[in-house]
């Protein structure tokens, strides 16, 4: 039963990844070129999900949108993990004032709304995929730092760290060879959950026009386009919404599934 969650999550995530990869080589129609004669068609053949207000095939745009989702997710979660995990480990291993400074700064970043940061970056550098990635990434750093710190505290209190110190392992050696491998599972779970949050944040930002600019299709700006025709062609808003919901669900299920799978106390007896 627990495994079902993991596999459902994996399947949804795989669907997003495969879609994004396929879109690099093939989409049913051009995802950018405007075709005035085919505006607002309903679902049918050959436009499976219909066309939008510019006469562009919605299925093709959704496929290309999956790329942005993955790029933003990977880069922002990667940024957050690469900065947050070492900081959390540093705080957990040293304790004292280092811990205090790192975690309080983390609290401040945590309290600062990501949206505000995104607006700030967009107004200075112009809205782009990069500003969205940086805003989401920076906002996610504290979550990773906290998870890493909690894991580090637990590992540092263990007998095998004492044994490693008794064999002459340096602090750095303990961090690299003992702490990091032992906290990797919880960081992985956090990455999966963080990915889901990043997808939502990216959709919100591009809906507001604070991320990837047109004409590149993203699920968020597709939602925005659909809004104008909400009463004429309501289905047009359904597709990107559904895509976002399924992708978020997928990464959340994967995260929870991983947590259950990796936690020996919750593991089923084979």
């Amino acid at each position: 039963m627990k495994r079902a969650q993991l596999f459902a999550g994996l399947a949804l995530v795989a669907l997003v990844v495969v879609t994004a990869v396929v879109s690099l080589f093939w989409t049913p129609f051009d995802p950018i070129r405007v075709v005035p004669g085919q505006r607002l068609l309903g679902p049918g053949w050959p436009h499976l999900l219909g066309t939008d207000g510019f006469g562009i095939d919605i299925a093709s745009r959704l496929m290309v949108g999956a790329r942005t989702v993955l790029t933003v997710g990977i880069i922002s979660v990667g940024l957050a993990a690469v900065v947050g995990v070492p900081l959390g480990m540093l705080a957990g291993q040293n304790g004292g004032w280092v811990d205090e400074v790192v975690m309080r700064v983390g609290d401040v970043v945590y309290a600062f709304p990501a949206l505000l940061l995104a607006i700030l970056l967009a107004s200075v550098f112009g809205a782009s995929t990069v500003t969205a990635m940086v805003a989401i990434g920076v906002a996610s750093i504290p979550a990773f730092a906290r998870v890493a710190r909690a894991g580090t505290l637990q590992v540092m209190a263990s007998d095998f760290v004492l044994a490693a110190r008794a064999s002459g392992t340096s602090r750095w050696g303990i961090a690299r060879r003992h702490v990091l491998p032992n906290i990797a599972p919880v960081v992985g779970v956090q990455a999966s959950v963080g990915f889901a949050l990043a997808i939502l944040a990216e959709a919100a930002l591009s809906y507001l026009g604070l991320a990837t600019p047109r004409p590149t299709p993203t699920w968020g700006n597709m939602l925005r386009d659909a809004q104008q025709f909400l009463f004429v062609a309501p289905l047009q808003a359904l597709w990107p919404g559904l895509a976002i919901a399924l992708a978020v669900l997928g990464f959340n299920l994967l995260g929870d599934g991983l947590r259950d799978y990796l936690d020996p106390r919750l593991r089923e007896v084979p």
Partner: protein
Amino acid sequence: MSLLEVRELDVSFGRRRAPAVRGVSFSLDAGQRLGVIGESGSGKTVTALAVTGLLPENAHVGGSVRLGGTEMIGLDERGLARLRGDTVSMVFQEPMTALDPTMRVGRQVAEVLRLHQGAESGPARDRVIAMLDEVGLADPERVADAFPHQLSGGQRQRAILAMALINSPDLVICDEPTTALDVTVQALVLAKLDEVLQASGAACLFISHDLAVVSQVCDQVLVMLDGRIVETGTVERLFTAPEHPYTRGLVATAQLERADPGQRLPTVDDFYAEAEHG
């Protein structure tokens, strides 16, 4: 000059400076084996951790611990790291948690060689397997490639023994190494420890709450109570002519087969009641 020279060691913890060890002095020559015996909280483990500089940061340490001529108290982390694993190594009580679950056992044993001799993994592996064989592990190749959770408690404790001995330290500190093992495995591990120590000529500080266990490995014993040493002597003398009432109690409880059938078994309190003496 002795290998280990502990003088007037005082350890207390926290802001209230709760004393754990008070004025402990003893010395250990190269190749000599000394048992430290006492109940939980008597300061045995704290003494061992003080010798290796592994006490937590909230510990206040006074006195002197000289290991191979180097003063350990007040030595910086780098200096301590150089001695740990090289001059002194430790065997811990809990075999289930003293091995890193994410690291293969062989690599973990090789770690100390890599740290102190910069050994490459290829030649190190041969030494690791030879060492695992020496501590009596039946299938050393398989054990080296296994993760800790794939081994039994006795196998793990022997792997930990191998880890402590592979770099031929001058002093091995064993902190209740067999307490977590059942009696049969305990006897095996103790026999191996005795054998391996004999072969390497390392000195040993053996900590236990069990006089019977200590007597299998050591010839000299010191008895700790409440952070102080109350009696020292050879195992033989302690068994035949214990001086301190607490030691008398320990000896009586270690020789339960001498109790008269039908009579209540002796306890330490019969000989030494803390309320009267403390």
